[in-house]
């Protein structure tokens, strides 16, 4: 008799606590889950302690401050970002992702926040001088799976042999070892990789195709889209992008200016 | 058969199992080796059967020396038959196929010749109905009897049997011993290692007691088993026959 009433009070108490907890958390805004692949310095990377950092991370944090929501960075492989967004594992993609027409059929994009383009990392021994040179039967092109370089190569450079790699580092190694003529990737990474493999590679930096990066969103998420677009406008006017450029890309900024290649923001 | 062994030495690694063993038998049909475990009887039998080469010493059957090189030993093995305690038969073949194998692959008989040869022994020893079974379907006694037949059908000069009944229950032991007894009647020569003293007493022409790597006593069965004057031998039999 006493036992039964004790148990029911206990259950009632637990239930009450649960309801209270859900009620209170429901009133605060849920965290903003941002998906990115942390292997793309200096935009998405980890610091020596293993914490996410980089241009995109700082951008996401600034966004979170504006929306008054906690930001959670989810490290997901690049070609898994869109599926993760579609199945609701993340709320938006800030991963240096190009807004292409094909991708726009699946997801929505914010206004572009960065201009870039596809460039070539070419092997020292290779005769290739431009993207057009690659469209020939004897040529081998390395691309990273799921990127716009991959898309471009498979639709516009059909005569060449295509090597689809998982990781940027593998694709660079293919070029450095002479197994591929060129790696098609964005101009910034091409610049950085060429510096690291100076004896084995050279760079054709001027973009042969321009692209813009934007934040990826679910098509129905119009409210978040407006919020992000507002944020981007404000961030730019406050000089936020300038500061990011100086913090993460000072050398590249100078180098690109010297070669008269348009820089990013 | 006349068996003449001089100064036989056998070692495995650093252990000496046969320590200058010597034995000269009369012209016997059945020689039985007895003795304690680890005393060297199985080691001796393996040498006599041509399976192992001793470190030193000589063995001669009816004046013919056992060779020491493998190809010649293999030829010798083809003229004798050996039966082990267990796992003689090849389990992936039927009893009949087990019997045919040495005839066809070693002695060059054709299928029909081989089948003709094994028919009579199978019937004589009551195993014809079991010939199409695999060893797993046979009793322990049947397996050993088929193993003996397999050794026999190649018409060997003599048989070597290493404790053929030690893994069997009393009923099957009797079955197998009966067959060996019958074989002796038919004139087969053999060297048998066994713990079955009753059978040794009945069937052996001579018994040799092997212990500590040498022959400690040798002679007619009754003398060795019942009346030995070697203390070691006497106490052995006193213990196991009590």
């Amino acid at each position: 008799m006493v036992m039964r009433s004790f148990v029911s009070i206990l259950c009632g108490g637990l239930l009450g606590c649960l309801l209270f907890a859900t009620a209170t958390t429901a009133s605060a805004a849920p965290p903003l889950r941002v998906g990115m692949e942390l292997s793309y310095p200096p935009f998405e990377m980890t610091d020596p302690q293993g914490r996410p950092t980089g241009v995109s991370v700082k951008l996401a944090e600034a966004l979170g401050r504006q929306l008054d929501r906690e930001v959670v960075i989810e490290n997901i492989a690049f070609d898994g970002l869109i599926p993760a967004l579609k199945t609701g594992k993340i709320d938006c993609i800030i991963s240096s992702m190009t807004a292409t027409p094909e991708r726009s059929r699946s997801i929505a994009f914010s206004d572009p926040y960065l201009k870039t383009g596809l460039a070539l990392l070419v092997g020292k021994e290779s005769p290739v001088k431009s993207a057009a040179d690659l469209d020939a039967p004897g040529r081998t092109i390395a691309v990273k799976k799921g990127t716009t370089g991959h898309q471009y190569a498979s639709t516009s450079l059909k005569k060449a042999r295509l090597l689809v790699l998982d990781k940027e580092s593998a694709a660079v190694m293919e070029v450095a070892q002479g197994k591929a003529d060129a790696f098609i990737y964005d101009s910034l990474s091409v610049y950085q990789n060429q510096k690291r493999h100076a004896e084995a590679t050279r760079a054709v930096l001027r973009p042969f195709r321009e692209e813009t990066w934007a934040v990826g969103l679910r098509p129905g998420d119009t409210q978040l889209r407006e919020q992000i677009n507002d944020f981007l406008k404000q961030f730019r006017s406050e000089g936020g992008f300038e500061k990011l450029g100086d913090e993460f890309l000072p050398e590249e900024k100078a180098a690109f200016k010297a070669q008269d290649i348009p820089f990013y923001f | 058969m006349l068996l003449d062994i001089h100064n036989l030495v056998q070692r495995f690694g650093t252990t000496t199992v046969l320590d200058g063993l010597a034995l000269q038998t009369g012209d016997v049909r059945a020689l039985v080796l007895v003795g304690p475990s680890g005393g060297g009887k199985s080691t001796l039998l393996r040498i006599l059967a041509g399976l192992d080469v001793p470190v030193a010493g000589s063995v001669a059957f009816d004046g013919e020396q056992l060779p020491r090189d493998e190809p010649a030993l293999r030829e010798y093995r083809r003229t004798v038959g050996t039966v082990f305690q267990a796992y003689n038969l090849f389990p992936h073949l039927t009893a009949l196929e087990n019997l045919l194998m040495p005839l066809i692959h070693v002695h060059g008989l054709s299928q029909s010749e081989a089948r003709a040869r094994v028919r009579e022994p199978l019937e004589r020893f009551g195993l014809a109905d079991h010939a199409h079974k695999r060893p797993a379907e046979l009793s322990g006694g049947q397996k050993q009897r088929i193993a003996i037949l397999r050794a026999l059908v190649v018409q060997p000069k003599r048989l070597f049997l290493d404790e053929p009944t030690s893994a069997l229950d009393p009923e099957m032991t009797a079955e197998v011993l009966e067959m060996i007894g019958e074989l002796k009647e038919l004139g087969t020569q053999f060297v048998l290692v066994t713990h079955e003293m009753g059978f040794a007493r009945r069937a052996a022409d001579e018994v040799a007691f092997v212990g500590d790597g040498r022959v400690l006593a040798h002679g007619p069965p009754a003398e060795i088993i019942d009346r030995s004057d070697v203390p070691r031998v006497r106490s052995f039999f006193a213990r196991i026959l009590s």
Partner: protein
Amino acid sequence: MPRWLAHTIVVILFAALIALAFSRVDYAWNWAGVWEYRQKFLQGFGVTVALSLASLVASTLIGIVAAVLLGSKNVMLEAVGRVYVELIRGTPLLVQLLLGFYVVASAVGLENRYVVGVLVLALFSGAYMAEIFRGGLAAIPQTQRDSARAIGLTPWQSLRLVILPQAVRLVLPAVAGQFVSLIKDSSLLSVIAVSEFTLAAQEVNSFTYSTLESYLPLAAGYLLLTLPLSALSRLLERRYRYEM
């Protein structure tokens, strides 16, 4: 209840469970998009079949050689076998592929990634095969070898007529399992850009953003290869079964 009926019922139940899980997820199916790439899938499937077959044969041979080395009385030979097996079994296939292709193969000038892929896969699987064969040989009682010698069989005859028939039956289940593993492991060759089945599905996924529609056919394709293999193995085991 007959076994085939029980199997079918379980499969249907399982499929129903999966269908239920899918219906809960708010997923917009896009089979049409993936259907456009059927040629790519088929090509990838063909490459996987070819790679798997080549590796199967090669790994069996390597396994036999390694098993012989492991059982050798010569100290150096046994050491070669043992070091090989322990190294391979102790490191991930992924690491072996990357090191093998980008470091070792480049150093010796072997450029063809398909050949290197098959070699690495064969060496990987061969190490496991070696242990399987060794275990099988060790499980045969010594008396079998003695009996074979006692009859007067030559070493070669004894191997052919007595040892191998028994060893094959003993190792058949494990070898079949290893073959199935190898077919699945071949998917890892995608990391050195070998255009096999899994990479094809991944590429289609990155073009169409239809993950499930890309990967379900992938799973089905592998089952198409592995299920017959398992069934064949069980059939052979039943037919040639004997007890010791």
